[in-house]
């Protein structure tokens, strides 16, 4: 498939590294990694990317506004979460869910789902 430009939202640097590796190892590109809500909101609103991978909890703050903005721009996204099924927000229940901890293959599968 054509390489996707992936927007990553994850506040734990070490986990972000692993997500970025998974993205790049599967032949895609990291457009930007946001580690706080302000940065995440700014890039979600005007950044250049194809799909997004979102951690829903940034320094204890729920990043609810980010998926809303992404949806408004028509950008597909998946959640990467430690909350399991309980972490999905009702309006975004259709978004793919990658549970932490994850295999590289889980990220790749989510990207395939988002890119198709």
């Amino acid at each position, binding site marked *: 498939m054509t390489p996707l430009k992936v927007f990553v939202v994850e506040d734990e640097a070490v986990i972000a590294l692993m997500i970025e590796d998974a993205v790049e190892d599967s032949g895609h590109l990291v457009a930007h990694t946001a580690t706080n809500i302000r940065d995440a909101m700014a890039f979600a609103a005007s950044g250049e990317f194809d799909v997004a991978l979102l951690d829903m909890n940034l320094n204890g703050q729920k990043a609810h506004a980010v998926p809303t903005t992404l949806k408004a721009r028509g950008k597909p996204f998946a959640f990467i979460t430690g909350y399991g099924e309980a972490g999905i927000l009702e309006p975004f229940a259709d978004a793919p869910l990658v549970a932490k*901890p994850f295999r590289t293959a889980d990220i790749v599968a989510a990207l395939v789902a988002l890119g198709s």
Partner: protein
Amino acid sequence: MSIVNPIPVGDGQPQDGGGKPGASDLSFAQFKALANAMPNLAWMADADGWLVWYNQRWYDFTGTTPEEMAGWGWQSVHHPDVLPEMLRRWTAALATGEPFEMTFPLRRGSDGSFRTFVTRAEPLKEGGKIVGWLGTNTDITELERTRERLQLVVNELNHRVKNTLATVQSIAQHTFSRANPEAYEAFEARLLSLASIHDALTREGWIKASLSEIVGRATSCFGGDRFLIEGPVLDIEARMASSLTMTLHELCTNAVKYGSLSVPQGSVSITWTVEPTGPRRELRLLWSETGGPAPTPPVHNGFGLKLIKRAPASDSGASVDHRFEAHGVECEIRLPLGEGLAS
């Protein structure tokens, strides 16, 4: 109208418990003192549901008068959204004579806010005929709030545990995945199997997990159609659930590497029963491989085999019998069951 005729309780006639001194001649004043001393709201109705008496706490909480509350006047302190369903169920109880129980909000008079009550009503019978109803409303608002807060904390804890596991995973990946990819893969698989049981435990408030879910999760990434899984519905305590998950994971890993799952025609059956052992009960879980190469015991007991034998045993008096049979590996786990959890 006003309530003029509260149901007299203890009119000098022998009643239930009448053999005890004093029980048969409880005066209405004493009854009222009792009913007003309890923390619940309480009331009495006649056989067709006409409210004839409330305790003082009802009036204190709702800020109403006996005149306003008589008969069916209590509807004015209910939430309009819930009232129709409440009426439907209350009239059904009146019609059938079945005890009534429902949780609904009632309006507090002092500030107009609604608090959550669990309400129970029992029919009062004389000679098999219903002559009235006795009801209580218990404020569970704080209980509900505490439960919600607790759920929030459990969710948060799970999130942090998962994030920590993901961090450890990332560190391990960057430290040794290139130098020793095979070892990293084994590590990652173990870590993920441990993490997967957390979801099941979180859902049950870290108290228990169902055995079929434990087995299902442990085997799912090894090809579910290679396993025959059979046993009664059973809940396993949280601690045991984690160690059982690790044991099953190692059994699966060994089966894929050396045992029945190393060849296409091999399979594994995982079956369990619950047997009485004296006053208690015991879980007997049998892992049995067939269709693979004849197993040979390893020269060294690796970490996996140690984990299989020791993880459940160290936790809760379980015993593990791991054998190399002609048809393949067999592993029998016996686990004493706690009194409260087995279902």
